[in-house]
């Protein structure tokens, strides 16, 4: 019986104007998407080329340093680490242009001083720290909304509303609802039949569109899919289905509440606008600003102040003249670090360690507080199913801010791995003073570049589970309220 109702619904839907409009718009958008992402500028291939270039540079950088000496490698660091681009960026762009694609672990040049009074000549390299450069100018990109699958999914939810707003209210106003009810069929079955009808009317064109899209991209040959991608795409289709199903239930709910289909559409339309545009964006910005954090300028001022204090304490550039009578302290680091003078080397190590510690504290602290704001905003905006849908797609495509957060987390782990590697290597050299991180305190022997640990990005899809769970929950919730409201509703 459910099948019959569903069939009747599908037949009815196929002949409507909205169906015609949908099957015109949907393939056009999918083709536009495929065309732009496979052939357009800054596509996957261009990103891969940039990434590979950076990787080669990094390898060369490590090789050069490692062939010189372990100490050199310890000071200049492993170089710039870039995030591997995602093949599925056409599915969920995730504000790709606004999110940085790399972090740097490299030393910023070298300093030298010429001896005067009792300071000795010395040239040193301040050790590297992990830094998070910003994607400098978002002005190069014009718009934040990209024609990706997420955008198409957003439009599909609009069509889901168009297909369901009169499903029950229409029958009621035409008077056919009482005819159906006079049959021996339960109300739950009627609702389910209507649901299935709308679901298939939406999903079949969607699947055809997706297949066209993938076929086009495959033929253009610009995005080489891997086997695991098919699983991710299947996952995305499932997320699509869950997302559309929520809006079908929502439509059925409003449709069963009111007697006039137009009133139901007004409600649905405004709900849709709120869920799509107003809610996620406004709430995101609002929550993001709730607990204010220090601005970039303030952080850098504080950092400079602390580094200045540190410099005043140690005076690596040499002390003031003892004769000028200003009573300034002489340099603690007046002696140059050298193998013969472990005392001085240790002092330099203390200075460097504190410098690294200060820089790291500020850099990590700042980006952590920024991430926290964004995370909170994202968590709250998930009350809108469309936002949840977007985040789930981004998670599966490994794009968006969460993938960058994961990347940063792994980069920090790599930082520790790299330092540990240097220290263990250094232990095996008996001539070394084992004082990290000063050039003179570490092994002067070259290391095998292949032994240096390599950064490998691990992609985790765990965060997607939360969103899928939420989507299922939304489905259940809207299913229940649609069911209940239909059961208690009047036939006329």
């Amino acid at each position, binding site marked *: 019986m459910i099948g019959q109702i569903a069939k009747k619904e599908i037949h009815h839907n196929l002949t409507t104007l909205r169906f015609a409009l949908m099957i015109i*718009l949907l393939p056009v958008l999918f083709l536009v998407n495929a065309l*732009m992402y496979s052939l357009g500028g800054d596509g996957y291939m261009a990103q891969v080329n940039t990434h590979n270039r950076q990787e080669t540079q990094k390898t060369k950088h490590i090789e050069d340093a490692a062939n010189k000496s372990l100490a050199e490698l310890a000071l200049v660091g492993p170089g710039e680490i870039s995030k591997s681009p995602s093949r599925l960026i056409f599915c969920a762009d*995730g504000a790709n242009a606004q999110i940085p694609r790399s972090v740097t672990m490299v030393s910023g040049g070298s300093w030298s001083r010429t001896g005067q009074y009792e300071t000795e000549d010395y040239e040193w390299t301040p050790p590297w720290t992990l830094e998070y450069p910003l994607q*400098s100018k978002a002005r190069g990109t014009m718009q934040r909304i990209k024609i990706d699958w997420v955008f198409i999914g957003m439009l599909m939810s609009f069509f889901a509303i168009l297909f369901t707003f009169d499903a029950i209210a229409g029958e009621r106003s035409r008077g056919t609802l009482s005819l159906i009810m006079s049959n021996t069929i339960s109300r739950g079955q009627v609702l389910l039949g209507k649901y299935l009808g709308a679901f298939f009317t939406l999903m079949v064109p969607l699947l055809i569109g997706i297949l066209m899209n993938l076929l086009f991209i495959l033929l253009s040959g610009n995005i080489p899919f891997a086997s695991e991608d098919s699983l991710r795409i299947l996952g995305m289709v499932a997320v699509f289905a869950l997302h559309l199903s929520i809006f079908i239930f929502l439509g059925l709910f409003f449709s069963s509440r009111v007697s006039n289909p137009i009133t139901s559409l007004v409600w649905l339309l405004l709900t849709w606008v709120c869920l799509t545009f107003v809610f996620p964006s406004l709430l995101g910005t609002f929550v993001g600003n709730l607990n204010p954090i220090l601005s970039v300028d303030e952080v850098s001022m504080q950092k400079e102040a602390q580094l200045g204090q540190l410099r005043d304490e140690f005076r690596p550039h040499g002390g003031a003249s003892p004769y000028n009578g200003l009573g300034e302290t002489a340099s603690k680091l007046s002696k140059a670090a050298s193998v013969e003078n472990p005392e001085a080397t240790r002092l330099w190590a203390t200075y460097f360690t504190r410098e690294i510690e200060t820089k790291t504290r500020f850099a990590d602290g700042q980006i952590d507080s920024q991430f926290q704001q964004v995370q909170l905003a994202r968590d709250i905006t998930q009350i809108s199913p469309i936002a949840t849908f977007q985040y789930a797609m981004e998670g599966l495509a490994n794009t968006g801010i969460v993938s960058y957060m994961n990347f940063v987390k792994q980069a920090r782990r790599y930082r520790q791995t790299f330092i540990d590697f240097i220290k263990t290597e250094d232990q095996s050299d008996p001539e070394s003073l084992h004082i990290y991180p000063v050039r003179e305190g570490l092994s002067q022997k070259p290391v095998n570049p292949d032994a240096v640990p390599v950064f490998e990005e691990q992609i985790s899809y765990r965060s997607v589970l939360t969103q899928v769970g939420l989507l299922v929950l939304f489905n259940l919730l809207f299913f229940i309220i649609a069911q209940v409201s239909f059961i208690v509703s009047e036939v006329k």
Partner: protein
Amino acid sequence: MVMLWLVIQREFVSNVLTSRFMIGFIVCLLSTAVAVFVQVDDHEKRLVGYNTAVREAETEAREWELYSKIKPKAHRKPNPLSIFNVGTENEGANTVTVELAKPIFEPSFPIWGAPTQKRGSDNPFLTIFLTVDVVFIFKIVLSALAILFAYNTISGEREDGTLKLVLSNSIPRDTIVLGKYLGGMLSLLPIVLVSLIVALLMALSSGITAFDGNDIAHVVLIFGVSLLYVSTWYLLGLLLSVWTKTAATSLILSMFIWVLLTSVHSNVVTFAVEKFPPYQSKPEAMFLQSASDAWNQFGKERDAYLKQRGYENITKSITWEPETTPTGTRSSSWSGGYFLIENYTVNSIGRADTSIFQEILGYQEQLRAEYAGKAEEILNKPAEQRERNVKFADAFSRVSFAEVYHFAVGAIAGTDRQHYNDFIQNARAYKREIVEYLKDKKAFSSRAWFSNDQGPAELTDLPVFEHQRLSLSESFSRASVDILILLAWNIVLFMVAYVSFLRYEMS
């Protein structure tokens, strides 16, 4: 006339009494209030950042003692109207540091010592959320409401059978169309008006915004354009309602057009232009290279001049009397490829005769400023190219009158790209002004260029960057093309709806 008034009244009452009016009113009002709340907060932050930056610059300015070391700054003042339309307010640079040897341009990648900076932002990652402001809400929600009011004006009456009754009266058809249009607009008017007034009151009561008469006039203009925009949508709905047989068809059709024009069209166009830019430009690194070549050229020209004067090096032109140690000069040069800053410190300045040195400096530093201008021209090319692409995309976006509305309001509020580019242009003009100022004071060849031993540089009348706000008529003339397009849409849609209804077959 009485008849017309009757039709208007009836249309108005039948609209206002519906649930869609109430729902629409509440949704519009609530979302406007939340948007204003968020934007006021954002604006406050920008103001704090701006004030801090200005204060810091003033403190810094007090420490300038040498003409060669001055670094005046141009700050972009936060625009109070950004509460209504954010536009480019949060984008791009808001501080430009004017240095004589540095070209002012906007690199699209991080560059060392960049002349254009963004100050006072706390979390760049929050830009992943779309900015929603009052105008955005009007653009989306009001247009939907206008359609919901208009879609059944004719087709609905026809389905109810009341159209026959109306037409059987002695009312001419044109009165009916006009009456229905005016009645519909009359019922939309309070929604626009109340939303804007609430927004304005919230902004005023927050206490951080200083709206002057000029700003209020701008808001009134925004109100007018918003009405024009709503009217366009209403007329579109009316037209579809005349053309289609049933209200359901006209509703579906107008909803489809609504989604197409407000959300799909401009996004597709802009994205397409971004992916396939019509104006391709060379990679920016090449422009940096040519800028660096220009600086080499500067070096050659300068050396030629020195040779002509008989010195191999500028510092050789200083003589000390008597010759004592330590004499000599220290010069530091600072170059990022695209600029070349050279500073000179003369040791034992009291015994040094620097008259020829100063003369050469006077030539050299003016030449440097000229070359900085040349480098600026070269380095500005990529930005010009980007701008042309954006203009191209904007031109195609204007097919949708929703975008036309957005552009018009941006131009009126002073938050569109044009205003941002004006800021950069003004900063350049400011730099030229500074150069002229220094020329007038003969600062390039003065002792205070490199040393303060004969008193510090006289900088009390150094020009300060003036922030320019446009007057109402200037804003209006900037938005006039877009307003005209909206007006044209209105006229065309009304004419077509009018003619269609006159030839309407009652069957």
